[in-house]
């Protein structure tokens, strides 16, 4: 009898509403693991606010004792040396990311609506093609993409950091799956009232798929904000490159250390450490918007993911 009861409690244990002692064993390994996984990001956070002498410290200490904004100031000063200020890179990132987000949402939802609710030839083929293209890893086809961008005359254009990112197969997939949940009758009722497809999309579909739209917003934000492809391959003009590129140029090679050692008049070694502080500051600037956005939209993302299922 007692064994049966125990079993019952365990089974109801999935997706529990209240806390009970049985959950402690899961938290017992989930919390330590989460802490370990957080560690590198915590390091970056502390490093970003460390004064140079604390970066020098041996043995290194995680916690910053006297937090300073010196690294952020150095970040600005480093780039001031190069004629393109860091704020310019940041502005480019913001602009391209906002454009990518807005346009992706628009074209993805309109295409997904048609693929979900309209009947026409090729529909299944197109959606199948989109599903297969989930596997076309962008890095694998970087070279042909480069030639296509060249042919389109997008080399050294700011648009090369926007246009190639707009078609997002995973976005279309998720939004279409989500629209499939909207009952046919709702769309039909609007149609009888005389609404055309554009009106249905705007007034019926859009308001009902906000979780899916939030998810696409998160994903397109990530793809644009973190992307270095356009800055590295398609742009020669520094003034239109983005912040992610600027950050890689800081952390890769001795770029930052050269500049900072010249700046602070110190040795190359102290320059390297100052460079570490600067790239930590830059990384934090990159990371925080990503995280904040996800935290705000995570419940919507989870809602969308429930409909992400694939049939084999």
């Amino acid at each position, binding site marked *: 009898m007692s064994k049966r009861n125990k079993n019952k409690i365990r089974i109801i244990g999935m997706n529990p509403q209240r806390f009970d002692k049985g959950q402690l064993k899961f938290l017992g390994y989930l919390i330590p693991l989460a802490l370990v996984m957080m560690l590198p990001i915590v390091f970056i956070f502390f490093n970003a606010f460390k004064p140079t002498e604390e970066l020098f410290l041996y043995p290194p200490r995680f916690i910053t004792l006297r937090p300073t904004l010196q690294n952020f100031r150095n970040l600005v000063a480093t780039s001031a040396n190069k004629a393109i200020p860091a704020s310019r890179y940041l502005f480019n990132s913001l602009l391209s990311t906002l454009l990518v987000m807005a346009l992706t949402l628009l074209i993805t939802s309109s295409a997904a609506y048609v693929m979900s609710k309209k009947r026409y030839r090729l529909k299944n083929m197109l959606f199948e093609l989109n599903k297969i293209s*989930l596997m076309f890893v962008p890095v694998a086809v970087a070279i042909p993409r480069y030639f296509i961008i060249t042919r389109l005359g997008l080399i050294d254009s700011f648009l090369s950091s926007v246009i190639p990112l707009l078609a997002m197969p995973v976005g279309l997939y998720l939004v279409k799956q989500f629209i499939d949940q909207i009952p046919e009758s709702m769309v039909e009722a609007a149609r009888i009232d005389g609404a055309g497809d554009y009106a249905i999309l705007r007034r019926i579909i859009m308001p009902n798929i906000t979780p899916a739209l939030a998810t696409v917003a998160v*994903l397109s934000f990530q793809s644009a904000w973190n992307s270095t492809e356009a800055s590295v391959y398609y742009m020669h003009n520094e003034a239109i490159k983005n912040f992610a590129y600027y950050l890689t140029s800081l952390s890769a090679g001795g770029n930052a250390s050269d500049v900072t050692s010249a700046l602070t008049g110190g040795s190359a070694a102290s320059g390297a450490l100052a460079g570490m502080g600067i790239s930590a500051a830059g990384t934090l600037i990159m990371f925080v918007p990503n995280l904040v956005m996800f935290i705000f939209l995570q419940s919507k993302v989870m809602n969308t993911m429930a409909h992400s299922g*694939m049939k084999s």
Partner: protein
Amino acid sequence: MKTAKRIIKGNKFSGRSFLERHSVFFLQLPFLALFFTFILLPVVVAFFLSFTDFNSIQTPRFIGLDNYVNLFTKDTVFMRYALPNTLSFALVVGVMGYILSFLMAWSLAQVTKGWRTVLAVILYSPSLTGSAMMGAVWRVVFSEDKVGYLNAFLLKQGLIQSPVNWLTNPQTLMMVMVLVSLWSSMGIGFLAMLAGILNVNRELYEAAYIDGVINRWQEILYITVPAAAPQMLFGAVMAVVGTFQSGSIGVVLSGGQNPTPGYAGQLLVTHIEDYGFLRYEMGYAAAVSVVLLLMIYGISRLTNRLFAGEDTAS
């Protein structure tokens, strides 16, 4: 009546009605145009370029299968490093990352919502660090000198005598790559599996309990996995894609060096970049791209097959 007539008339002749009649076409046009140009076309172009000799300036010259023949018979870096490295990297990171994602998702499903949300955000957050941030984040830990956190820690514990060059030593670079990739592997696929597991109907568990399911392994095997199979398949596809997508991690970690020290971190993705953007042998690089795409496709088909088997079993 009058207004109704006007609406009909207006619809028939105005530009708006043209758009309305061809709405299926116009609503899809932007997405499909961009999709064909930037996602499908590159694959087609890669396929055709792979049969040519092309230095990106002169017109491509058709050379048949030469690129593929050279790739598999003469390219020692490909055969000795890039291909085996990619296979083992994909196997370890792909399979382990996927299993880890599932186990974490399953464990998270057993705790209350507050804990679950906080922990899921933490586990997911590493996947937010794109390759741009990855270098800076991990350099702090694996820094070569004794100021690097890991070296300092190991020195203090007396486990090593002198600092280890984690990122330039061919023996450790691959290990670090695997570790870092696993760290950032809990992305969108992990969230999908978590949502899938949470959505499994409770009655299924109760029914199974009556049918004599006695332990957690049986519960996972007979209920959770089959019921969440669609999300798990989506998660698997995302894991495959994510694994190959993170192929340039070796170059990022070794500070932008391509080839990586001793070719230890050389993967197909870095091999493509090496030939394409550093040596300008575009035709050859395209052949490597085709091999890579075929590999990804093959692995995805295999996962599909596995889940198809799962479906019939349940």
